């Protein structure tokens, strides 16, 4: 569970929404980027909720420390059992962890939930979509020129198909990913789009990318970016983390024809 939460941990606080489907943990920054981690009810051995939906704000840094109280590296043969309880509005989130006969109880104060942004990203407005194996994208993202303020993403039905560009102090770099590459699992690009995003906002998504096996990259008619990461957790179960990012407003979007 902590792998999934670490993938969205770029701010101190997170919003937790619990429903019958499971838990959704949301982290936002600058009103331009939002990350959502989905822990579906199925990954838990037991998941009970009395109300339709329960929402609270919590310190994600503290939550992660508690989840990893017995150490972050798991020793072979040892498993940690976890139980989480929330008694309703105003109550703390209570965690009970057990490993090797040692029991830890944590009680974390919750706060009034904030409104989260609705990026209004729906599949009907998706112009370009690529699904690829995370491996090759990891390399490209790790080598991103941090002196560049902007990451430019070009997606097109024509060459170069998928290009990541940065414009830093040393010069510009372009990484091209041809659609025929066996790293690319699905390629649905209808229109050539070039969009620019602030590198500083996208950097946190690298954490999610490095834990993932597969990623879907989509842009809509407004240039908004959706990254969806498929992460396998410690027990082999599959969870999703998605990042939404608004395009950089200082630059004009240019649509090459």
């Amino acid at each position: 569970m902590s792998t999934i939460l670490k993938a969205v941990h770029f701010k101190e606080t997170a919003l937790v929404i619990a429903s019958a489907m499971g838990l959704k943990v949301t982290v936002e920054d600058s009103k331009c980027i939002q990350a959502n981690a989905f822990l579906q009810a199925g990954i838990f051995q037991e998941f009970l909720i009395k109300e339709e939906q329960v929402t609270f704000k919590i310190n994600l840094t503290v939550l992660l420390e508690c989840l990893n109280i017995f150490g972050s590296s798991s020793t072979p043969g040892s498993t940690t059992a976890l139980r989480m309880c929330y008694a309703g509005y105003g109550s703390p989130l209570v965690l009970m962890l057990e490993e090797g006969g040692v029991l830890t109880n944590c009680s974390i104060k919750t706060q009034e939930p904030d409104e989260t942004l609705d990026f209004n990203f729906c599949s009907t407005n998706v112009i370009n979509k690529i699904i690829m194996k995370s491996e090759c994208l990891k390399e490209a993202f790790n080598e991103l020129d941090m002196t560049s303020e902007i990451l430019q993403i070009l997606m097109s039905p024509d060459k170069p198909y998928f290009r990541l560009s940065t414009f830093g102090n040393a010069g510009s770099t372009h990484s091209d990913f041809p659609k025929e590459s066996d790293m690319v699992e699905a390629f649905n690009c209808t229109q050539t789009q070039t969009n620019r995003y602030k590198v500083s906002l996208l950097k946190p998504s690298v954490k999610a990318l490095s834990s993932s096996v597969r990623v879907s990259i989509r842009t809509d008619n407004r240039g908004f970016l959706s990254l969806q990461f498929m992460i396998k957790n410690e027990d082999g179960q599959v969870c999703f983390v998605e990042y939404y990012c608004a395009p950089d407003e200082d630059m004009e979007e240019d649509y090459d024809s």
Partner: protein
Amino acid sequence: MRFRGKLVDIGCIQHFTRVVSTISKLAKTCTLRINQSKLYFILSERVVNGGVSIWCELTQGHFFNEFNMEGLAEDANEIFLELTPENMVKSLKSAQNAKWVKMKLTKKHTPCITFEVELPSLTSHSRTVVHDVPVSVIPKRLWDEFEEPEMPDFDVSIYMPPLKVVRNVVDRMKNLSNFVVLSANQSGELILKVETDLVSVSTHFRDLTHPQWTKDKDPNVSQTPTQTQQRDPQEFVEVRVDIRKFAQFLSSQQVGPQRVICNIVDNRIIHFFLLHDDVSLQYFMPVVSM
């Protein structure tokens, strides 16, 4: 004053290195006391040390093949030196494969402990490395600052759970608060707790054992078993300590698996006692009031 010792067995050299390494992680400077039968690494309880005090005792015969010392005078046959243990560790690190190590009290530009290390060589010529560790001689009038601490009249005495587990938990708790409360009872239970405005975390260890203190086991013990028997064994006593100092103590331990005893006087004293065949280490931490 003279001192000369030689370590020959590679196991002894490595063991000695680990002991000094532990000390170096606990104190920047300390006192080395030498007499005919023992070596001591001492940190006395002074404000400048942050209230921590250390007493580490080694039986010389278990480490040294050859050992000669002549103290200050016939009626004061001891040597007290102040040094930086990290410097000793650095010298000993070069000896991990040595044929032998000699330690000598010498006078170079300042008094030193000189380490001579004979290293294995492929040729018939020998390779020797020499390190000089500067020390300062402590005058006799200050010697009574470095006496063995009295075993406290503890309320609870318990064997710690494996330090590795405690260390993992405390390393995490360190990120949540500056202080941790240790509580224990005479029924095998130990609890570590941190509490702040935002979060409270408590880790509960059970089924721990207790040392049986008798006058025979340790002649220095003034504590009789009846003292602890008078308490309700389920009742907890507690102390609040600086979490960083506790974490430092836990991460300093280099000498292998051993029994670690924790003695607590409710809200006043916390004392750790590590016992090995040839080494004993006592560590007192300052207690912060609740």
